[in-house]
């Protein structure tokens, strides 16, 4: 499933509206401890987290995630969204807890 299709099916907010959303999502990783994410994430996954700061963007790019899904209403600042957009990293906001966000992905077959 592409990021675009995920947004259409969930109504989750796209915090980086200027970016292309045609990238494929292959699985997902949930976590907020960056070394665990760095050590266990896989390319093309969606990363579900409540961490919102510049280092999250660095980890996501190095790990080649397809997008970040910010869960639990963690505050996506304009600065964060702008930096992610500049680095071409798609950021979504699910507005749901981490578990509910992950469950939604499973229901949609990701």
């Amino acid at each position, binding site marked *: 499933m592409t990021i675009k299709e995920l947004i259409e099916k969930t109504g989750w907010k796209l915090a980086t509206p200027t970016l292309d959303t045609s990238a494929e999502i292959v699985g997902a990783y949930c976590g907020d*401890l960056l070394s665990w994410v760095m050590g266990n994430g896989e390319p093309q996954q969606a990363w579900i987290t409540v961490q919102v700061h510049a*280092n999250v963007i*660095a*980890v996501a790019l190095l790990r080649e995630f397809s997008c970040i899904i910010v869960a639990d209403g963690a505050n996506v600042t304009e600065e964060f969204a702008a930096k992610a957009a500049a680095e071409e990293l798609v950021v979504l906001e699910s507005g749901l807890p981490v578990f509910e966000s992950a469950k939604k992905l499973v229901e949609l077959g990701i």
Partner: protein
Amino acid sequence: MESILHKEYTVVQDDYVNAGKVSSDIKSTLAEIGISPKVIRKIAVASYESEINLIIHAWGGKVFMDVNDDGSVALVFKDPGPGIPDLEKALTPGWSTASEKARGMGFGAGMGLPNIQRVSDEFNIESSPAGTTLSLLFRSPV
């Protein structure tokens, strides 16, 4: 084995804003010269963790990258201190001495050095109060 490409970087203590920039440059440099994506992914994990260590644990430091004529990539991370008092503990998964500030950002999981060790083909670390030198080698698949 001879170096065919050499790059050096400086990492500044507590510079969380630029954390990952060195690793990102290493990654794109290696991609440009055609190192395999699988090896680059391992290098990205190791370089990011090591770069973060220079920022949150050391007083900053230097990073040296060499691509060798056999396709292997050597990374050296050298800092001026304060040194790792107990290397064995530092290499134990889950052990961390990270500050509250660093933990608040999701660092300090105690997985940095174990992650680096796991993805490297050669791993060597020497530490004293005068500084720590971490030397890593990544071989390219034949």
